[in-house]
């Protein structure tokens, strides 16, 4: 009986302990496969994106960030499928392909300071942190914000600062920003966010349902502070079948 109990304890310890090396390797393989899928999707959508491939730095960042750490345990086995996943609290972690092109469209440089409105799982912030000097991220739903903060700290993302609060007013203390990403679709762009965008900066807003991004809006502020938007369909789809 004692022997059985010992075996049971040992097994439970093994199961609840750190993931065996093989598991990490498996995730890395899956991540590489995902990179291949994203590259292919980008090639097919090049007509809308004005590019054949994404910035290699963006691809490298995506290849580095362990997406499986950012999803709930129940979703972990789908972590490297190219689709959005529910993360609780009625929120989702975006489709990796959409994260890739949104990040790419921001045209980031290593010295940039980026604001993210809507931390969610923290995945997008982690991807940004691989590419720029400073990331500031605000989450409005308290439990999500706390969870993301702990996770990002655990993964040693020292260049990300998070805050729980209303993203409408941006983060005045660290403004202006080279880029802003608003992950929760809005019916209008908050004027304070436009004000906190540097001349020459870019803001990205995905528009759609909670689950699927329908279109991307890139807000650009030129050196004269003139603001324009670009509406991008992130899939290979043209409304007309041919000449008319």
């Amino acid at each position: 009986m004692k022997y059985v109990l010992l075996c049971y304890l040992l097994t439970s310890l093994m199961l609840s302990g750190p993931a065996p090396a093989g598991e990490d390797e498996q995730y890395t393989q899956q991540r590489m496969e995902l990179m291949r899928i994203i590259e292919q999707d980008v090639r097919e959508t090049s007509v809308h994106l004005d590019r054949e491939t994404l910035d290699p730095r963006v691809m490298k960042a995506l290849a580095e960030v362990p997406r499986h750490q950012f999803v709930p345990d129940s979703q972990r086995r789908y972590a490297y499928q190219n689709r959005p996943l529910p993360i609780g609290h009625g929120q989702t972690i975006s489709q990796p392909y959409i994260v890739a092109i949104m990040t790419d469209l921001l045209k980031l440089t290593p010295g940039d300071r980026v604001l993210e409105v809507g931390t969610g799982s923290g995945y997008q912030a982690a991807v940004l942190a691989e590419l720029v000097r400073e990331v500031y991220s605000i989450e409005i739903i308290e439990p999500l914000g706390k969870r993301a903060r702990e996770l990002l700290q655990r993964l040693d993302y020292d260049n990300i600062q998070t805050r729980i609060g209303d993203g409408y007013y941006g983060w005045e203390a660290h403004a202006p920003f080279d880029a802003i990403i608003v992950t929760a679709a809005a019916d209008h762009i908050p004027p304070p966010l436009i004000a906190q965008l540097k001349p020459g900066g870019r803001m990205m807003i995905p528009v759609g349902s909670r689950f699927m991004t329908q279109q991307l809006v890139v807000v650009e502020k030129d050196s004269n502070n003139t603001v324009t938007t670009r509406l991008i369909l992130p899939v290979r789809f043209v409304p007309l079948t041919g000449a008319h």
Partner: protein
Amino acid sequence: MRPPLLTIALLSATALGYEILLMRLFSIIQWHHFAYMIISLALLGYGASGTFLAFVQARLLNHYPLALLINLALFGLTAMPSFLVAQQIPFNPEEILWNWREAVRLMFVYLLLSLPFFFAANAIALTFSKFNKLITRVYAFDLFGAGVGSLGVILILYVIPPLGALSLVSALGMACIAVAAWELQLSKRLWIGAAVLLSMAIAVWSEPPSGLVLSPYKDLSQTLRVSGARVIAERFSPMATLQVVENDRVPLRYAPGMSLNAGSSPPAQLGLFSDGGSMGSITRDSGDPQAVDFLDQLTSALPYHLQHAQRVLVLGAGGGMDVLQALYQDSAEIHAVELNPQVIGLVSKDYAEFSGGLYSKPGVQLHTAEGRGFVSARDTHYDLIQIALQHSSGASSAGLYSLSESYLYTTEALQTYLGHLSSGGYLAISRWIKLPPRDTLKLFVTAIDALRVAGVEEPGKRLILIRGWQTSTLLVKNGEFTADEIRAMRDFSQQRAFDVAWYHGMSADEPNRFNIFREPYLYQAAQALLGPHRQSFMEQYKFNLQPATDDQPYFHNFFKWSTLKEILELRGQGGMPLLEAGYPVLVATLAQALLASSLLILLPLVFLKRRKQSSDSSGISQLRVVSYFFAIGLAFLFIEIAFIQKFMLFLHHPLFTASVVLASFLVFAGLGSNWSKRYSMQKSYGQGVKWAVAGILLTGTAYLLLLDTLFAWMVAWPTIARAAVSIVLIGPLAFFMGMPFPLALTSLRTAAGTLIPLAWAVNGCASVLSAVLATLLAIHFGFTLVVLLALLLYILAALEFPVRSVNSV
């Protein structure tokens, strides 16, 4: 033993009430078209009952009183838990295409919700078989009960919230047991009555273990997740459940498509939600115009900058944003039309102070009415008719069987609005921007058609279309736009970083400056749609841009089969939002219902065939039974649904129309069934059916030809008079329609009753298929064709009447 007629009437009333209630509840916790799919599939419980009884009916009939009581008890006992468990199943429609677990969850929901219908149907079908000489009478009570139930549940929903109404319906379900015990003169009826009373009391007074569990992806769920958000008011009615949400910590802000150049944000607002979906906001008005100057930064402010609008009509006033906008622009006379009186109550009473007494300000006149009906019933002309941006949920919340019909945006509707514009007045309609464009373009084509019908040769000169990054506004003028107006429109757009998408004479370098599409889609489309290549453009466009008409009122259907393959291939890239869900969900509903129905009908057929080999039966052709009952099952609901739609334009109010038409159909059909007993007593079933079909053909055809003229003549009559006329018109048609089912069912009793369950299964399945098919057919061919098809089906039924085989035996 006498048939338990009151029991059947009460059961039928309760079951129909339960069905309508489920639709209401699922529209709140899920989305309308999924609610529709779920309830449709659950109703197959009726069909399943026929299949079940084909196997076990003989045994159950030997113990009829007990079998009846058990089924009644099971109906009452499952009604509430079925829903409570089903709503806990976390079904997310958006995941279903890649996660098979969602499909399994959905299946569980269907099964759970079909249980109460299954038991109710068993009770009714067993009674048909037991009292097979009196079917016309039993069916009369069945229909009459259903008619009363359809009205009753609507009335109940005015005083009791939906979940409380569910308790009441469960209690009524149990009351059926006591009524049955009393009607059947059971020896233990007193004990049964006492037990029933007790369980009814428990059902009504016990609190359900949870409230309504809304999908976490609904607007209301999302808003309430933000810290500080709380519901400060809640209203319920059969039209919708409304919530007002306040957040002191993280203010709610709603300014759809506000200009990028706007310097200020909207003031404090209260969120207004209808069935868990956002329907705009109530804006605080402190009297300082500067505090609400965001209203001048929306695309919908355009008409006010071209000309001063003295008399404005706002259709779909809701929380009052467009009314406030008109006040901000100094309009002197503003007519605010809103369908839901509780929305008006919230703004004008409960939050009157917050909204600065918006709806009682000088010049503002409030009307509780359906928008289009309001316009057509009056002879007033307006300088501006503004159709508010929010999605009108009226028709869909009436939604017994509707899938986003909208009579607000049909070609005829736009003609009506144009006919009520003063000389030089504008019709302004704002929509959300979608990429690739869909509704903005469909609206543009609809306006072109409406102008052409009115005899305008160059509609392009009367149209202006502008867009921001989120919204577009289309202006249709009663007259041609002048150079001054065009200049003012360009200035307005330039200052707010909006793009001009169409005005007559614009240059090709103008349309894509501030909000840049890959191509100037709207401008290119507008040019094509106004030019000679309109037809080929529309054919080649990947979404359906065909204008909606009163006969095909599906403005929101943009789906094209030819595009489906392409969209499915783009699934991996996140292409699914290109799929407009409503139509595919309808097709999916039909496919599932067809599959399930085939099984439910084929099973008893195989069973009966085997049995026939062992013991001879009456010689009635089973195929005829199936085709007859299938034809009348389809036809009955085809006509009912088509007439709900036809009368919508006459009675205007969607919920009111659905209630009046549905109840009239059921009650008069019940009277018809009762009257048809003179044929069943003489055993001249076939003759009775022929007379009934002749009556249906005559009245049906007459209505198809005359209704429109009749409605146009009486459109300005008072509501009560129009409702009375509707009942009188529906009466004769429904009366005849109540006869073919009970007459044929009675004729089958000679077959030792084994065919009655088969007929019941076929009828149950056909009813479900019919509702879905009617909508699909109406989308493609219009409601007139649905009625014509129904008439043909009745002819087919008269020819296929199964009793002929009996005569030949």
